[in-house]
């Protein structure tokens, strides 16, 4: 190693503190967290009689307590490398002392994050994701830019233990950048249904909240529905408003989240960085990848763009909390088919191709039609029969449109779904608008579940579920003979393979 490296080794062998200006970051972090948690207790008594003096005193006391906690936290938080054991060590705590040592080989990815305050002070938050049941997520709240980059370099270096030739390779980096225009395109074409659902949920959540605060707008809302304002123009206006809300919120969130997205090959890893308000840097190593998935809808197919999501092995599956699970997902928005192939090639060192294609049984269509179309229609009919929400004419029109849509959805769900097996990969595609394709390397399979309901036994049909450390994929209504053959072969390959799944 060079001289510089020796100097770095010396620095990191002894305990390091976080950056002093970083105390501000920790302070605001804690302050916001405390305010968030106790906000409801503050607001409710204040709605009726607002006392500015009391308010300021509360804020000041909270700030003072936070400051003391911040100082203790800062003083008793150190990190260092143990170069003998190849461990990264964090010591923290004043009352309850904790010593965390993470073997470098267990570190799955290192994320450098910046929120607003980090950006002003030119600091970084370091997050290390580890996999395995005995691990905890390691994070250092605020360090200088140089130290952050050094740590990243170090862990990369020690983890791979590759020769210098490998590092030289980084000069001819393969880069993928997603420009602003592509982000706009992808923002306008993705996630229609998710955002729509989110907006509806938000709307009802807000109603509930206002109701809890005794600001009652529900009567006016329901009287608005009952007043029969369901004319053609009204419906048109509401639809336009909703569509506008979906488009704009999609566009804004995509641009903010993925602004200046770039992906670079670095040694054997892929480094991704993006973000407008809080920028993120993620290091992803290909052998930790469990599921490679991409989504493309009809419009995106025409303009040749897709959203790639890469699922990595995560320790958080068993606890399955939504937030930490997100850390093991890597998003690549707006890749064209060439980029997609390049990334796939980089991760798996091979191409994806369909070799044996299996379509689901036609019963998938009928079951979906029953669940999506006929069952809700029957409920709707019964309710309308007893409570008379709509006049007969209106009812018939709504019912007809609904049945047509459910027919279309069920048909597309059936038409778009297939399973394909090749020498090293298994691939499943599904969806009616956003068509999702998921690819798993066969030796990364953890276990296989075959489900067969009693009424499918006679039809000789069954469902297949394939589990990996990064999530599972399911494919229903397969011919049981084919399914048995596939299962036997998959299991056989997993057992024969010496390659590690992580």
């Amino acid at each position: 190693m060079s001289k510089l490296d020796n100097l770095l080794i010396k620095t990191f062998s002894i305990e390091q503190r976080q950056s002093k200006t970083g105390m501000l970051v920790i302070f605001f972090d804690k302050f916001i967290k405390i305010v968030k948690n106790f906000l409801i207790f503050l607001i409710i008594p204040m709605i009726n009689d607002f006392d500015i003096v009391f308010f300021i005193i509360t804020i000041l006391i909270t700030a003072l307590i936070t400051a003391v906690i911040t100082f203790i936290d800062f003083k008793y938080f150190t990190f260092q490398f143990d170069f003998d054991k190849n461990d990264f060590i964090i010591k923290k705590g004043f009352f309850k002392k904790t010593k965390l040592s993470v073997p470098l080989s267990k570190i799955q990815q290192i994320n450098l994050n910046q929120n607003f305050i980090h950006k002003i002070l030119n600091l970084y938050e370091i997050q290390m994701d580890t996999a395995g049941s005995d691990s905890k997520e390691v994070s250092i709240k605020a360090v200088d830019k140089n130290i952050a980059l050094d740590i990243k370099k170090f862990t990369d270096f020690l983890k791979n233990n590759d020769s210098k030739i490998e590092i030289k390779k980084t000069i001819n980096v393969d880069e993928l950048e997603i420009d602003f225009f592509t982000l706009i395109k992808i923002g306008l074409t993705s996630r229609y249904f998710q955002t729509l659902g989110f907006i509806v949920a938000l709307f009802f959540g807000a109603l509930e909240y206002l109701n809890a605060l005794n600001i009652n707008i529900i009567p006016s809302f329901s009287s608005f529905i009952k007043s029969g304002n369901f004319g053609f123009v009204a419906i048109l206006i509401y639809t336009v408003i909703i569509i506008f809300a979906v488009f704009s919120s999609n566009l804004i969130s995509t641009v903010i989240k993925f602004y200046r997205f770039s992906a670079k090959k670095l040694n054997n890893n892929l480094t991704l960085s993006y973000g407008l308000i809080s920028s993120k840097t993620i290091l992803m190593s290909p052998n930790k990848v469990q599921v490679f998935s991409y989504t493309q809808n009809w419009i995106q197919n025409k303009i040749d763009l897709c959203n790639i999501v890469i699922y990595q092995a995560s320790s958080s599956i068993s606890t399955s909390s939504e937030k930490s699970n997100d850390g093991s997902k890597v998003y690549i928005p707006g890749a064209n088919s060439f980029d997609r192939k390049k990334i796939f090639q980089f991760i798996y060192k091979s191409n994806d191709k369909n070799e044996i294609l299996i379509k689901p049984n036609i019963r998938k269509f009928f079951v979906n039609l029953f669940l999506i179309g006929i069952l809700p229609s029957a409920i709707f009919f019964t309710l309308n029969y007893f409570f008379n929400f709509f006049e007969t004419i209106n009812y018939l029109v709504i019912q007809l449109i609904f049945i047509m849509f459910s027919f279309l959805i069920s048909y597309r769900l059936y038409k778009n779904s297939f399973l394909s097996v090749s020498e090293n990969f298994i691939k499943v595609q599904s969806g009616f608008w956003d068509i999702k394709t998921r690819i798993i390397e066969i030796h990364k399979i953890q276990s296989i579940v075959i489900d067969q309901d009693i009424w499918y036994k006679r039809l000789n049909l069954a469902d297949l579920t394939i589990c990996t450390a990064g999530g599972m994929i399911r494919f229903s209504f397969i011919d049981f003979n084919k399914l048995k053959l596939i299962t036997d072969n998959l299991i056989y390959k997993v057992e024969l393979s010496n390659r590690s799944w992580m």
Partner: protein
Amino acid sequence: MKNSFTNNKILKENIPQVEQVELSKIEDKYIFIMLINRTIWFIISFIGCVIISNIEILDNYSIAIYISFIVLFILIFSFTRISFQKKKYAFRDHDLIYSSGVIFTSTTIIPYNRIQHLAIHQSFISRIFDLSSIQFYTAGGSYTDISIKGLSKEDAEKWKEFVSAKIEKLKK
């Protein structure tokens, strides 16, 4: 169609088949534990039922609630025996298989080289009958973890040794 499917080189036909494996049943005594568990559930949900039918709005429907509740439990109890017979397991050379379920039959296969760790559990009731359960964990999440209940204590220990030895051997 079928010929072109099976002749492909990717899917081999002369390999071990899950279908042909003779699955073994769990200990007969386990049916008593199943009955006890169902009785406990019966008592708990009966209390729930009493509370629900005392709610004012549902006062008129209380008979219907009780009848549907009792019908449901008669069904559940009468399924006990079939459900017991459906619980089967097998340890092969390279993997283990567990299958269960009356209406929704599911068969799980875990290769030994994907098992993270395993554990033997013994609950209070199963201690009376001298039974144990053995659970296998993978990195694939709790959905596919196999838990074979109703093994005799010796069998559970025996299989634990067997699988542990397999895992050790594969590590080398």
